[in-house]
């Protein structure tokens, strides 16, 4: 399992829609990495990723968008993400 999160394992229930230019995304990514939370990183500058994010979020253009166990969270606080994935990833 990759610690930097770019290659999530099959077990990982977190999808992380992000972009290079997004300050909130950088901060959340640092938090996820420092808490060993793995995720699948999808850059919304790639059209297909942006489309799948919009489908997941019901048309809401906001990042970071996370899909955790199928539930969508937009710009969630790091500690909440940790709480939501804790049971699954520890």
């Amino acid at each position, binding site marked *: 399992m990759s610690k930097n999160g770019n290659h999530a394992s099959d077990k990982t229930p977190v999808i992380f829609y992000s*972009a290079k*230019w*997004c*300050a*909130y995304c*950088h*901060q959340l990514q640092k*938090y996820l990495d420092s808490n060993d939370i793995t995720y699948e990183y999808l850059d*919304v*500058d790639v059209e297909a990723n*942006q489309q799948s994010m919009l489908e997941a*979020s*019901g*048309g*809401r*253009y*906001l*990042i970071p968008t996370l899909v955790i166990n199928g539930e969508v969270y*937009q710009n969630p*606080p*790091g*500690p909440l993400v940790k709480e939501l994935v804790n049971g699954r990833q520890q």
Partner: protein
Amino acid sequence: MEDSNNMKKTTVLMVGAGPSALAASVYTTREHIETVLVEKGVIGGLAAITDKIDNYPGFAEGIAGLELADQLQKQAERFGAKIELGEVKSIEKIGEDILVKTTDGDYSAEAVLLATGSDYKKLSVPGEKEFYGRGVHYCATCDGAFYKDKKIIVVGGGNSAAQESLFLTRFSNDITVLVRSEWRASDVLVEEVENHDAITVEMGWQVSEIVGEDNKVARVVATHLETDKTKEFAADGVFVFVGLKPNTDFIKNSKIELDDYGFIKTDSNLQTTIPGVFASGDVRSGATMQIASAVGEGATAALKLRMYLENKHRAK
């Protein structure tokens, strides 16, 4: 450190981790004063979400906001500042110490710095809340890239509106700025906006509604203040920059005095009406809303705070 009631203890607690608190924490931690910063949003505050900062001294070619925020954070952490993510909910002086309640537990601190800055004001018109994220936005550097080659309306006439409109020209060449009465931005910015081929400026329009179709923004309805005429402006995205309001809701019920606009009043030592509680940066009454001044006030507050702690310990 944690006591038996799970109350965490620190010498200094700073509310917010924007430029002001980060600068202050460099000063306190270099003096080996234990310092915890509690941040509810993004480390670096508004500076972190500003595209490029051209007027912060020391960077001849300007610096990206995200880069400045990163450097400020690293510098503060190098000396031992501890940054926690969470939101401060209340502050109260109990005896000699200050009780700070956060979403991530309670702290007891000997001194506190309030450096919570300000947040975007809303238009408070129908459709604004409903279409937030579906065409309504408050941060061009955060969300502007979603509007590549789309029609954008910017609402506002201050420095932020002007600066953010110019930033949005990276993505769109169809931007209309609706200014309610007159420009309140610097002449340099206004000139740049008005001469930009991708931007049209419409003066005198007050937005009354944001209307959507298919679950996303379709147009903005506005009334002209002089002619009373109502017009609909087609839009894929609406970026609202109609000013900032201080982040002081969490101290509204405390003994800290605020001015008529909700900013924190301080004396010449940057101390609030509660001894041991200081304030600096954009949230302070009389602030000049610039990173350089927020950083300068942070340094001043840290030095005054140190004097406060020294006097307190000497008196014991």
